[in-house]
């Protein structure tokens, strides 16, 4: 369970460019929730995920994960509890290293690295098995450098890496946005499958309203650093893309990116 209490994040405080990216966010996400997050450009979605991951400190408020106060934890310490996938497929993997090396590093997420063999034979077998489940043929390319993979393949690999060692929290920031629509849908299918299979508590940012309603059991809408909509389960099933668009229009935040992503 993830809990945010009055979390506030201000960028460039005290300058003319001061920007309140998160204004007193209160949020409770019980274990097993799969939450999709939508909102216009600059609404604070990435900032929300980044303060949860500890990329930068908060200006006020506390963050709890499983009743531990993690507010003061450094990013690499929180990594023990969280798996992350970024928008840019290049950011999630080490390009000059092989597929198996990347997976081996992910398997040890949050653990102390020692002078032990980096990959064991048993792990190789596990990697092959898990890669085969992706259905991309990567199980036969363990020794290929990740540089050789396409964006979609890299993002699928990153997703596998983020979930290889079960995280308490999976953070996905527009992880399908940089892919072509067809590949994006495939990666989303994979996401849904992995989340269900491992019962992962998940936060997924997306600009695609269809995706936001298709995946998960709960949807948040953000605007100007605040959560302006929080629907779940039965109520969310009744919500349509049309409703969401209407809400955007009412707030006057109908952005170009949204329009593009959700054109009929």
């Amino acid at each position, binding site marked *: 369970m993830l809990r945010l209490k009055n979390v506030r994040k201000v960028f460039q405080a005290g300058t003319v460019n001061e920007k309140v990216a998160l204004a007193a966010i209160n949020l409770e996400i019980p274990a097993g929730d799969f939450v999709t997050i939508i909102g216009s450009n600059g609404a604070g979605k990435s900032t929300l995920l980044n303060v949860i*991951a500890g990329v930068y400190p908060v200006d006020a408020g506390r963050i709890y994960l499983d009743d531990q106060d993690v507010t003061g934890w*450094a*990013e*690499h*310490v929180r*990594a*023990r509890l*969280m798996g*992350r996938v*970024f928008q840019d497929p*290049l*950011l*999630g*993997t*080490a*390009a*000059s*290293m092989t597929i198996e*090396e990347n997976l*081996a*590093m*992910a398997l*040890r*997420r*949050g*653990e102390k*690295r*020692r*002078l*032990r*063999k*980096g*990959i064991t034979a048993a792990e190789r077998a596990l990697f092959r098995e898990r890669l085969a489940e992706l259905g991309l043929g990567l199980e036969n390319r363990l020794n290929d450098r990740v540089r050789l993979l396409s964006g979609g393949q890299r993002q699928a690999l990153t997703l596998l*890496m983020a979930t290889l060692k079960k995280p308490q929290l999976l953070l996905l920031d527009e992880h399908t946005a940089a892919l072509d629509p067809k590949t994006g849908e495939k990666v989303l299918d994979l996401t849904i499958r992995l989340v269900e299979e491992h019962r992962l508590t998940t936060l997924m940012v997306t600009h695609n309203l269809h995706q936001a309603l298709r995946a998960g059991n709960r949807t948040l809408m953000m605007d100007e650093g605040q959560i302006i909509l929080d629907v779940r389960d039965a109520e969310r099933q009744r919500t349509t893309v049309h409703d969401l668009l209407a809400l955007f229009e009412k707030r006057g935040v109908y952005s170009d990116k949204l329009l593009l992503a959700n054109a009929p």
Partner: protein
Amino acid sequence: MLAFVGFLVSPLEQGLIYGMMALGVYLSFRVLNYADLTVDGSLPLGAAITASMIVAGHDPWLATLLAVLGGAVAGTATGLLHTQLRITPLLSGILTMTALYSINLRVMGRSNIPLLRADTIFNQAAALGLGERGASLILAAGTAALLIFLLYLFLETELGLAVRATGDNEQMIKSLGVNTDTTKVLGLALSNALVALSGSYVAQYQHFADVGMGIGTIIAGLASVIIGEVLFGSSSVWRALVAVVGGSFFYRLVIALVLWMGLQPTDLKLMTALLVVLALASPQLKQRLRLGASGS
């Protein structure tokens, strides 16, 4: 023919001994992606520690070991300047290098220590019955091979993978729970330990340590790394490491050749710079030649 083989021996020995330095440069420059200029100071540091200890009557192997530790401390200093004080990689290296100039003078007590009839690791190896020439070559080759092997093993450990990922994609390895400050300091310490070891061997091989002997170390190291990549490739960690030492040999061979052809020793640095430019530009040059050939 025999004369030619004789001509090869010296560049081979030098290539192996300076190859240890090039392995250090490979570690910082290629693996960590960190342009570390500390090496211009840590090579003479290794030489200075070794020479002054040998002159003081200590065992040369102990002197060599302490040189390695000295190099590791120098690398750690650079790493801490960067990770704790957020000084840029380039400047942090320059700062340590500059400080080391004074420190090396202090260690030596003067600007030059001759080791003419001193007890060195090479003499000790020769006394085992290997003969003077054989001892240098076997010791240099044995050490270089051992270092390549150990470095290979290290780069395939959990910790080694984390160090490599730090140079490749810092954000990614951080999100997998690695403190990249630690991996950077560790990598720089190892790198400069190798460079200081090389400096220690150089001093014992050429029978003197000089405070100015570090000038241009980084560029010689880069030349070796890049020439090695061009000539031997870098398709695996194993191959890349062997290529570095191979590149170092080739670099010393070119120097021996141009000196033999009558180039002034003072022009060597210019030649090295040109060689590095050539090696760096070779992928583009190749491409252009190919384009030119198919385009016309």
